[in-house]
């Protein structure tokens, strides 16, 4: 599996501690996601990690009905989200949505709040943000 570069370690360790942390360029302060070794905007090397609240909005979503290999830990159907994280200039993270039924409409733009859980993938429990509609509100 690609993508778990050393640069991302603070992200995964913060999730393991039950919080969300995202990187900003330590030169120009711009949010950097995915994290990069160098800021392509100002040329600065290195980032600072900042805790951000587990709240945001639904940017897009899909409800999976087909049993794709590797998803056995998730009961069908399940809703995967792309969540826009509040206060990060619109940076997006993938996650799961809980608390919606099979027939419930999911709506882009709906406010959501999250908690940290994990998804079993092969031999590993991978941390994941599990979202729910904010204030128990309607999708």
């Amino acid at each position, binding site marked *: 599996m690609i993508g778990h570069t050393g640069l991302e370690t603070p992200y995964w360790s913060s999730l393991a501690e039950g919080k969300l942390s995202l990187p900003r360029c330590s030169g120009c302060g711009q949010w950097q996601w995915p994290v990069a070794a160098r800021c392509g905007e100002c040329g600065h090397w290195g980032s600072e990690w900042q805790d951000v609240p587990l709240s945001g909005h639904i940017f897009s979503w899909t409800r999976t009905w087909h049993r794709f290999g590797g998803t056995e830990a998730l009961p069908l159907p399940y809703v*995967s989200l792309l969540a826009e994280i509040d206060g990060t200039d619109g940076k*997006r993270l*993938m996650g799961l949505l809980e608390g919606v039924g099979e027939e419930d409409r999911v709506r*882009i733009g709906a406010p959501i709040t999250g908690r940290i859980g994990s*998804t079993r993938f092969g031999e590993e429990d*991978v941390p994941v943000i599990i979202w729910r509609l904010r204030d128990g509100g309607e999708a």
Partner: protein
Amino acid sequence: MNKTFYAKTAVAGVGIRQFRRASAPMSEQQALTHAIVDACEDAGLAPADVDGFVTYGDDKNEPARLMSALGTKELNWSMAVLGGGGGGIAGAFADAAAAIISGQAKAVVIFRALVQDMSGRLSAAVMAHHLNRHMVAAGIVAPAQVCAMRAQRLFEYHGVPESTAEEFLKACYYHGSHNPDAIAYQTAFDHDAYAGSRLIAEPFRLFDCSRENDGAGALLLVSAEHARNLAKPPVYLLGATQGTGKGWGDLLDNDEDYASAGFATVARRLWEQTDLTPADIDVAQIYENFSAQGVASLIDHGFCTYENVAEFVRFENLIAPGGGLPVNTHGGNTAQGFIHGIGMAIEAVRCLRGESANPVPDARTCLLAGGPAAPTVSSAIFGNSGIIG
């Protein structure tokens, strides 16, 4: 304008061997050898005279291993488009043309072979490039799910009617049903069949997804002058561009124009490179890994916009012979067959030769758009003597 590629090279021969998935009666290398020899026979050129090979999408067949069977005298160009999966298909033509125009090679075969027993599932191979902890934790492991989320945004946020995906598919299946070589030959496809197919990942149903075939395809590219002395009428390469722009790529779904197919810079440069516009295109082979991405590809290339897409993406407008822009005249990846899209390039050539099962009379130009929504994509335009003279 940079007309470096414009009609400097031409496809002189095509060959394809297609089988149902996991049922090829021969190995991947054998199927590929057949397809290359077929392409050479189509052109009237000895296979031993092919001196260059270009592929894309992680094809595992290294050209050096084909030399014994082909009798290759010299291997002078051996290249693959890096990344992008099916998004590399038109880039392979740019690469082959660059070799010929610069004098590095004289007869270059563009190929893709896929026999599951050897290469495994294509979807798994594609995902090996992209799969990461963010995705698997969210239950996202397949291209269908990645593209489904983009499709959802296209429909729900940008207001593109979901019916456009169905109209696009109906055109593919209409063409496929009239093509004896298509998996959908003589197959009826209507709204009930579509809406009744099972959900895969919303908004996609089974019919929204291309399904893999075994097989191999090859196209022989030579200089325009050389092509005019071979057996078949030349189909000229007018332009080809590959890549992506800032704000698109492998960005953990943080792409700027997220619901698009990723062609913004590639399409712009293609029109600039050829001095053509969407109005100059007579027929198009629009790689549809998934229905909505085919629609997004048409938008990206400027045939329509988020606002007027429903006027353009109508069944009647997308079918041969009378539609304004017939698309996927052999049936496309969904209804003809899917060997990582190589069949679309072959159909681009056949329709400009007048050999398509769904002819487009007097067609002079054909667009080939590579795998939409990939981190890098590519597009090409082909033309026949009708435009070149």
